[in-house]
């Protein structure tokens, strides 16, 4: 039971905040459902722009490959967030998260980041190798000193 001026005011503000957050959630869910927020590449590694540029005009661009690290990150996120939500709804308060569960999410996230790092390093190295070869084959280049 809310009584008094400040009690009513705080209850009204709490109600407005709750409605705003719920409307945000419903808008996002609706846009995901109607495909205005596109989930097609949720699990995909970004396509290589150089490879895409080399594809002929009449050939559809290659669909990026699904990423295993993204998939397992999604699974762990949904499982832990889902369990957390269920326990919070049951107990009516924020439940404690053990340290090892945070470590589990950390392992998953670190693996995802390391996977992206390996890919980026491979691409950078490939471009560097191509640039070195192109410089060596350029007219007037010194094949011994590389200049």
């Amino acid at each position, binding site marked *: 039971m809310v009584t008094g001026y400040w009690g009513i005011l705080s209850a009204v503000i709490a109600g407005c905040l709750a409605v705003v957050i*719920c409307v945000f959630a419903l808008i996002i869910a609706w846009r995901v459902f109607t495909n205005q927020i596109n989930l*097609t590449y949720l699990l995909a590694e970004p396509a290589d722009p150089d490879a895409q540029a080399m594809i002929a005009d009449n050939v559809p661009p290659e669909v990026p*490959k*699904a990423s295993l690290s993204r998939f397992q990150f999604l699974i762990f996120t949904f499982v832990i967030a889902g369990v957390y939500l269920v326990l919070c709804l*049951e107990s009516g308060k924020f439940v404690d998260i053990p340290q090892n569960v945070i470590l589990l999410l950390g*392992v998953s996230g670190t693996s995802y980041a390391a996977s992206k790092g*390996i890919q980026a390093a491979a691409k950078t190295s*490939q471009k560097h190798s191509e640039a070195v070869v192109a410089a060596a084959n350029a007219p007037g280049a010194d094949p011994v000193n590389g200049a």
Partner: protein
Amino acid sequence: MSWIWLPRFVEITVAAWFVAVGGVILLRMITGAIPLDGMLKHDRRSFGLEFHRLQLLAVTLMMAAGYLIIALGRGHAQTLPDVSPPFLLAVAGSHLTYLGNKFAQSRKWGGMTSW
């Protein structure tokens, strides 16, 4: 004035949102709108699948299912179920195997300088 319905309204909305978004993602994976093609390969053009990717997928699904069963089987609890160190080590080892293989294959195919 009673606001007793407000927490219940937010709880139901959040739970419904979570289920709806999860359901849409699952449905789109099943129908192929979210492509899963090439998940078990380093290179889309290669044939077959790679064992280190298959083992990471299997370990991930087993651990996630096991955690879910433990968590929901405890009834009313005040904390998330803890994860034992061997469980954590198994997940970390699985990820290291995956990353090690990915690194080696990136050196082999991705144009990194040779060893």
